[in-house]
């Protein structure tokens, strides 16, 4: 970092090669890192989906015999952990990476190499946590990992160690990325791109980064306590020593509830891009959409204990958290109505992206309503830890986040690859997903209210759960088929999709003014913005690309580009090895533990210095 301030005038010493494995490993281009995030997270999404399918296979019949109780615990824990930390968060990160610089008219993020580092840490963290399957020691304490149940006393295997360390590693990735995007959005906007002219996705991304930097440190500390309890014999969660049995729950949910908004707000942002384009109308109530996003994020820090009504916090705490939770329904409802009013009177084009966006409005509303139901402590006591809650959060996370992300993928695929995804296969994907999703999760409301608890691997034939579970399982199989259509469409359109052109949807924001896929420098001339919808208003100085125009290279234009570098990858790799060392403490293999921890730390510091002391461009 020290020498970057004295960057020499541009001398083209090396030009980044744009093809081959090496170019991907050493890339610092935000668009390529976004693509890496997208593909990696989709693979993890498939893995998490397979875990879900096995769960549904086990529960399809009473007294299922597909997996053991132990494996079942591993499956639901890894399903949740994978979908949250390795699928939805990085899928959102894929869009942050690809879109934020494009939408604000920048050439890259503020710290391109830190961005590469975030990706590699995410990849290694995901591999680390999944490596536990090879030892049949996958995490089995739930995605929430409640201590003291996850302390050595109750869970002596390696399972929880993999989980604790894996989440710590992934936290580094999210935090590094969040500092990067906050700086990018504050400091790299094109002339005239005032905050209140930013596209709604960038706004939601901006808000989410603040949630990340404020919520993640809390789980970091909760995990440090657990790590220390497990490895070094501290007593943070040791009840016999006087520890508070709720310490973990409070710390976890102070992180965990903002995390819910970390998962949903990016999808809200994507839908707020898709709906105006396909309605041919500006977003209804833009400022209110911004403020409601902020209010959701702000209130999101004051509702964590609604996850804990069942522990008996007393009437005052229950009432306060119940009320703040109900309050969040207001800004969320505002968003729902604003999307509907955006479509109202518009000339709606029902593309696959638009269908997914509209599905989000409908399905998220169902999940939102059941959420308001368990905001009431007495109602929650009936619903908590039952399948009703499983139905609720799958409506908001699958019906909300994933539908929004699918809308974003169909909408932005042509910008990312230059080719359109097939609408025909996309329609198959959409309708099968929509039907399968509702078949899977709607019956869970009923099985939950009928008393079926979460996280059980078996139920009896006479308990009245059989029919609901059978329907849920058939729904899950339909979802699997739907996902196959998606994967086929995603892979095949890369080479065989129709050529998209720079603005296939007649969209209004800056990213659609440049070629698809964008050149590595994004904007040959940094645009000057004077409205929220520059390509519709034709105001400001925005150069729209003309199809067939030759695209110049960065060198021809004299634009300095950052050098590709492998140093962030090494830093991430050594950091992961350092964390791996802690696993050996568990086995009392101190020589190996020291080798990995000190070797990893030394390698990490060395690569970090080498990275910071070499010039960016």
């Amino acid at each position, binding site marked *: 970092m020290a020498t970057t301030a*004295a960057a020499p005038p541009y001398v083209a010493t090396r030009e980044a090669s744009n093809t081959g494995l090496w170019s991907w490993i050493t890339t610092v281009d935000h668009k390529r890192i976004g693509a890496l995030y997208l593909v990696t997270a989709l693979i993890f999404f498939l893995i998490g989906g397979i875990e879900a399918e096995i769960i549904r296979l086990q529960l399809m019949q009473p007294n299922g015999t597909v997996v053991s109780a132990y494996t079942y615990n591993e499956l639901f824990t890894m399903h949740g952990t994978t979908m949250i930390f390795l699928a939805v968060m990085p899928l959102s990160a894929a869009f942050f990476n690809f879109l934020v610089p494009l939408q604000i008219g920048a050439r890259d993020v503020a710290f391109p190499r830190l961005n590469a580092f975030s990706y590699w840490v995410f990849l290694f963290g995901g591999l680390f946590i999944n490596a536990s399957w090879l030892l049949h020691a996958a995490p089995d304490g739930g995605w929430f990992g409640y201590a003291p149940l996850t302390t050595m006393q109750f869970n002596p295997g390696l399972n929880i160690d993999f989980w604790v360390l894996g989440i710590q590693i992934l936290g580094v990735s999210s935090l590094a990325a969040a500092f990067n995007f906050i*700086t990018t959005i504050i400091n*790299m906007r094109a002339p005239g791109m005032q905050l209140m002219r930013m596209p709604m996705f960038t706004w939601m991304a901006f808000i989410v980064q603040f949630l990340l930097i404020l919520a993640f440190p809390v789980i970091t500390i909760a995990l440090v306590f657990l790590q220390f309890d497990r490895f070094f014999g501290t007593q943070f969660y040791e009840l016999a020593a006087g520890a508070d049995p709720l310490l973990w729950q409070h710390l976890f949910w102070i992180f965990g509830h903002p995390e819910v908004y970390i998962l949903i707000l990016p999808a809200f942002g994507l839908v707020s891009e898709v709906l105006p384009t396909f309605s041919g109308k500006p977003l209804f109530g833009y400022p209110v959409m911004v403020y409601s996003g902020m209010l959701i994020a702000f209130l999101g820090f004051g509702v964590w204990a609604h996850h804990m009504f069942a522990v008996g916090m007393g009437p005052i705490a229950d009432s306060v958290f119940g009320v703040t939770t109900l309050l969040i329904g207001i800004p969320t409802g505002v968003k729902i109505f604003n999307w509907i009013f955006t479509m109202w009177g518009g000339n709606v084009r029902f593309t696959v992206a638009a269908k997914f966006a509209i599905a989000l409005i409908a399905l998220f509303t169902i999940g939102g309503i059941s959420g308001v139901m368990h905001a009431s402590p007495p109602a929650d006591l009936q619903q908590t830890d039952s399948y009703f809650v499983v139905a609720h959060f799958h409506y908001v996370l699958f019906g909300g986040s994933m539908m929004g992300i699918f809308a974003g993928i169909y909408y932005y695929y042509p910008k990312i690859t230059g080719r359109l995804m097939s609408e025909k296969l996309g329609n198959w994907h959409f309708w099968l997903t929509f039907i399968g999703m509702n078949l899977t999760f709607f019956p869970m409301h009923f099985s939950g209210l009928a008393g079926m608890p979460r996280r059980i691997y078996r139920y009896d034939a006479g308990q009245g759960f059989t029919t609901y579970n059978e329907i849920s399982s058939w729904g899950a199989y339909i979802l699997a088929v739907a996902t196959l259509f998606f994967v086929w469409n995603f892979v095949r359109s890369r080479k065989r999709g129709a050529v998209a052109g720079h603005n296939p949807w007649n969209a209004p924001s800056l990213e659609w003014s440049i070629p698809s896929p964008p050149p590595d420098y994004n904007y040959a001339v940094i645009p000057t913005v004077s409205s929220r919808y520059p390509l519709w208003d034709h105001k400001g100085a925005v150069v729209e690309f003309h199809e067939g125009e030759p695209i110049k290279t960065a060198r021809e234009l004299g634009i300095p580009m950052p050098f590709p570098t492998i140093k962030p990858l090494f830093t991430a790799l050594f950091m992961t090895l350092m964390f791996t060392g802690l696993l050996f403490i568990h086995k009392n293999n101190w020589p190996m533990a020291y080798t990995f921890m000190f070797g990893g730390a030394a390698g990490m510091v060395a690569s970090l210095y080498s990275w910071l002391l070499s010039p960016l461009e």
Partner: protein
Amino acid sequence: MANPAAAIEHHGHTPTTTGLDHRKVAIWAFIGSECMLFASLISTYLIYKGRSVTGPFPHEVCSPPVCDHVMKPILNIPVTSVSTFVLLMSSLAMVLALAAVENADKPKHSLSEKILGSSKLWLFMTALLGTTFLGFQAFEFTSFVHEGLTIRTNLFGSSFFTLTGFHGAHVTAGVLWLVTLLAIDIRRGLKPKDAVIVDIAALYWHFVDVVWIAIFTLVYLIH
């Protein structure tokens, strides 16, 4: 909106929206995040205060039958007051180091101007005072262990060592950062255009100091 042309003149590199260097914006975001980290540690310490079922305790004597033998209160406030003073003085040295880098180009005539304007001296002093603080902490930790308090002894031990240990780790990282800056200064000399890299280190250093003031007040001074 900042005028980009003016920003170039001021900072000599790529214009930014706010006119601030990217690194300066990022360090503030980082400090915001660190606040939550220390808030979690400090809250846990305070929640667990007085909940230990066995001694030694921070401010109270532990006598049988709670403890096997009489154990004195563990915290040594006079010694820690000295180390707190040392750390606060390091912030002063840090301010002088930054001022020296910002004014590196100005001619210096008198001896006092030369001393005050030596970034190498003040970076070294900051690192030295930081290291002294760490020495005090090492002494404190060792003597606590001798008096029978380890990280495993009781809730107080667990939460105290983890909180102050995290702070100590932050000071250690800061010292490494300062030594790196000192090495750059010795090799090629830090000029006013490099002020931002000293500025962000200074912001971090002052933050770590402020956290210590909170810890010293809440853990040591308040019974």
